[in-house]
């Protein structure tokens, strides 16, 4: 089933040639393949390749109990041999086509990003199908990649940024998978068997949890066939239920992790709000003014520009599929970090009490609405954005409704959501370093 949007796509290309319009709409075709798989497409035939993005919902949060790291290890093994090919022959075949594919996994999704030349797209798709449906998990490859994952785990344990985020997640998310690293521990990864990997694949690589988007030199009809070829052989349903919501258990205060370094790495978080909250966009605008907006944010102005206490400080609404926080981070010299943390708290309070000026509000809205269309400037970026939108449940016309919702935010909205959500006594700071003049609270 192909919707009529294709006609619009070719019309808008004519406009492109005629005039430089400031805001051209992006034309998303929503298709259903002959085999019943839904996909979003932006057609653009100017460069002879297709970018394809697949996202499998649940990601590493679908690890079986006690098997932390299994989906991470399984994902890394998808390109290490499948069908009749061992890892070397598979890689030779992909390289011989000039195709590219990346397999990544996060808390929320297993993602495949592929680029396929038009001249050999079907062959490239065959290899991708083979990787997703017939991975071999050869013992040699499993041991080699397991050792690489163990090395990543060792690196995380000596990286102050990873130590800080891991500790914050541990305090925030209780028994939910969000509470620990997707890569597992030395022990959990050492114990994984080939059967565990086969089970892990069944938990996440299934058609009931995949979202598909493509952009580039491909028609809707061609994409339908391509998607059926790549995904048609996957099981209809994943073997595990999707992850449950995570309940935030973070308590305000300070945690210090001793680390011999001239600087203290700071990660902090407090409760956030879901995208479905009526005040989400007001909070989104508030965050930009408070700490999300780079050099125009209040935190950057106070902590970097005015006092030189850090190279960078920032905040963001961190909205996962299964839980959300309002969080931030910075690094500051051990003898200055106490002052910088104090400034974060006082800016938090000033925002909650005083709200924002009309100029701050206007500037934030112009940035947030102006920046949005700039993201869609390439096939690879478009495919990733479109798959991500489906993953988090946004409709295709979100690309048109998003900016009006930001425009509608008023200073009173920002003030209300700030008063409701921003509480400096609810922030948990995790400090990794040898900070002076500031100590752990519990």
């Amino acid at each position, binding site marked *: 089933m192909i919707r009529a949007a294709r006609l619009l796509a070719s019309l808008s290309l004519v406009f492109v040639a005629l005039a430089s319009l400031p805001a051209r709409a992006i034309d998303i075709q929503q298709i259903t393949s002959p085999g019943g798989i839904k996909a979003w497409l932006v057609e653009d035939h100017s460069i002879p390749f297709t970018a394809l993005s697949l996202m499998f919902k649940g990601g590493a949060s679908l690890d079986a109990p006690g098997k932390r790291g299994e989906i991470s290890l399984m994902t890394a093994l998808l390109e290490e041999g499948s069908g009749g090919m061992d890892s070397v022959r598979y890689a030779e075949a992909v390289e011989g086509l*000039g195709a590219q594919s990346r397999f990544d996994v996060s808390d929320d999704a297993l993602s495949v990003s592929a680029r396929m030349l038009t001249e050999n797209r079907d062959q490239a798709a065959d290899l991708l199908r083979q990787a997703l449906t017939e991975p071999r998990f050869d013992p040699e490859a499993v041991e080699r990649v397991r050792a690489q994952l163990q090395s990543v785990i060792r690196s995380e344990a000596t990286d102050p940024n990873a130590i800080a985020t891991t500790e914050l997640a541990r305090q925030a998310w209780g028994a939910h998978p969000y509470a620990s690293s997707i890569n597992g521990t030395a022990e959990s990864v050492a114990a994984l068997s080939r059967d565990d990997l086969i089970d892990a694949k069944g938990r996440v690589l299934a058609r009931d949890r995949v979202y598909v988007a493509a952009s580039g030199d491909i028609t809707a009809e061609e994409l339908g066939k391509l998607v059926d070829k790549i995904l048609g052989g996957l099981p209809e349903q994943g073997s595990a239920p999707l992850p449950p919501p995570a309940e935030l258990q973070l308590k305000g205060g300070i945690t210090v992790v001793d680390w011999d370094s001239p600087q203290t790495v700071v990660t902090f978080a407090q409760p956030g709000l879901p995208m479905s909250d009526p005040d989400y966009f007001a909070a989104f605008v508030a965050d930009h003014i408070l700490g999300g907006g*780079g050099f125009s944010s209040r935190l950057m102005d106070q902590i970097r520009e005015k006092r030189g206490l850090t190279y960078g400080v920032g905040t963001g609404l961190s909205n996962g599929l299964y839980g959300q926080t309002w969080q931030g981070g910075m690094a500051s010299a051990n003898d200055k970090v106490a002052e910088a943390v104090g400034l974060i708290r006082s800016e938090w309070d000033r925002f909650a009490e005083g709200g924002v000026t009309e100029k701050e509000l206007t500037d934030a809205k112009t940035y947030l609405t102006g920046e949005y269309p700039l993201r869609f400037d390439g096939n690879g970026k478009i495919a990733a954005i479109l798959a991500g939108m489906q993953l988090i449940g946004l409709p295709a016309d979100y690309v048109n409704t998003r900016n009006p919702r930001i425009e509608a935010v008023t200073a009173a909205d920002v003030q209300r959501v700030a008063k409701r959500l921003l509480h400096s006594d609810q922030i948990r700071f995790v400090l990794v370093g040898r900070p002076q003049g500031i100590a752990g609270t519990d």
Partner: protein
Amino acid sequence: MRRPHRLAPALTALALSAAPALAEMPQGISHFTLPNGLEAVVIEDHRAPVVVQMVWYRIGSADEQPGKSGIAHYLEHLMFKGTDRLGPGELSKTVTANGGMDNAFTSYDYTAYFQRIAADRLPLVMDMESDRMANLKIGEDDWKAERQVVLEERSQRTDSDPGAQFSEERNAVQFYNSPYRRPVIGWRPEMEGLTRDDAIAWYQAHYAPNDAVLVIAGDVTADKARALAEKYYGPIPAKPDSTRKPRPQEPEQRAPRRIERSDPRVPQPVLTRTVLAPERNPGDQKTAAALSVLAELLAGSAQTSVLARDLVLTGKALYVDASYDGLTVDPTTFGLSLVPAPGVSNADAEAALDAALQKFLKDGPDPAQLERVKTQIRADRIYAQDSAHGRAYDYGQGLSIGLTVEDVNDWPDILAAVTPDDIRAAAKLVLSNPASVTGWLLPQPGAAPGDAQALPAAQTGEIQ
């Protein structure tokens, strides 16, 4: 490295980019030079209403005087502190308030500033960027706080990371005489002594249209970009004496060097080896192309490359890498690195690397592997069209280190034309060369840098 980045008659300008030269340009690329010496490249991509402006100055940390290391990068930060017309930080705030983003970065050979913004705001950012090319004002109140910021940047990027510290020291050992021996961000004691006067002197000596490259990429026509360039940059006078001076060159290096450091923050041993290598030069990029292909053949694939097959698939190493970037003014380095597999001694891993390299020197490239690498080079050329920003970077970097637009245009063809004999010669050049530094960065056995008890429970057991 900043962020977490007199109008002549139109005929004169036209004459500088006559029709035959244009005919050889790749589709959508145009090139012109203003009478004041500003060289410009326009890369058209009308798929999205976005444009990137980049200004690259042909000046970098390798042009600094001894004792003033870090001044090129410090000035890059101070370039955001305003002009006669713009207050401190106002440029970035204006870009942001118009829905764009901006940043800057400094390297050994260049300092670059860019904005990415909706195409209809291009005149605004060209107005502001041209303003700070000639009218920078550094307030008495701003320079000390910004010096603290660059010191914090050094702490974050270098001093908190033993790998970055080790690279810095390895560079200092690699180059006897070239200023590439100094870190771009500067040595800390010298950074602490940099002043506003140093910054102003650097700016006045080196920031001029005749030593800059303007790149406009995205949803703009060549004619429009040129008209805007003439309007905003055309009136800025050239500075005849600002051109960069030749730098001290490396003498012959006869002694391979070894360095070693242990640090409790290092999770596992890492071997790095760098060796002096030639760079890309105008009309002379063949050796550099062969070195680029050599790096791909040696370690470009985790499964099929020479070192992956000989070291990783055989269980001797966890990771291997080979790197080469020829976009430098003076001779650069070719790099190799590996992480030994658990249970393999550092000496055995290094011996296995040496044996694999000797075998490659003897056998030369495998024809089938070379063919696959060539296929990927052809594909990359197509994929590269997807990013106007990426292509802007290619031209800006190339022109700022002294290549011509033709050199940048020709690079993919030169890569595609590399022969097995070229690769053998390139391998001989860098793999049997005493101008090398081999470094081992090692963990400190039994010593975690923090109090292990304070680490998160899930992490404690993982420290080795």
